[in-house]
């Protein structure tokens, strides 16, 4: 199997990251914002792995960072979805502009 060039994978990762940025700033629905954050985390994971593979193939730092980022993303998603469901119970909406009271 031919090796994919280094820059091409970086290009994919950049596109994914800025798609996430765009989605995070345009969407106001909390779940879609969470999905955009997941996109950005995936872009970071791709970057970690590609730098590990092509620049420092003798070490495993990028692999471990990717594993920990995936773990933390799972924890973050579970807590965020619990918070979102609770907010929906209180406010009957999950639009980030409508939920504007800190204490209720």
């Amino acid at each position, binding site marked *: 199997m031919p090796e994919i060039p280094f820059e091409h994978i970086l290009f994919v990762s950049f596109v994914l990251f*800025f798609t996430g940025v765009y989605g995070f700033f345009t969407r106001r629905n909390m779940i879609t914002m969470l999905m955009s954050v997941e996109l950005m985390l995936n872009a970071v994971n791709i970057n970690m792995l590609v730098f590990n593979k092509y620049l420092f193939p003798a070490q495993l730092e990028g692999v471990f960072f990717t594993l920990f980022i995936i773990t933390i993303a*799972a924890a973050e998603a579970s807590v965020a979805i619990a918070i979102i469901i609770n907010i929906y119970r209180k406010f009957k909406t999950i639009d980030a502009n409508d939920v504007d009271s800190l204490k209720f």
Partner: protein
Amino acid sequence: MTVTTRRLFRSAIYLLFTLINVAALYFAMQYEFIAAVQIVVYVGGIIVLILFSLFLTQQAGVDLPVPSLGRVVFASSLAFFGFVLLFTIARLGFSGSETGELSGSLEMNTLGKQMLSFDRFGYVLPFEVVSILLLAAMIGAIAIAFRTKKDA
């Protein structure tokens, strides 16, 4: 398309395909274990969570409102300039230690040993910290979800 479609369920399904493609990219980079973890955790866990919460909080068939023009312009310009900046940085090239040939497939054995070793490049402390973090996240999610109205 995850961020542009106005139907939430389609958005989640597009995210699912994106994550599967990322896993395929890991396979192409010969990180099979990471690809497996990606599929299990993201596709099996996070997408299911997101779909579940979508069904709980969203009326089916309701489209999202179109975002305002100023916000679209702001976000797309931010994304575009950030992309151009990173792309120019990437074009400058990297000077890594390209020592040694690309070590083919990642050995599960070395991965596990380094994960739990106390040596210089060992990762046992982050491993423990992550386990504490997962426990805290679980307890926090349960505490948030089970809070009733009177003790809130």
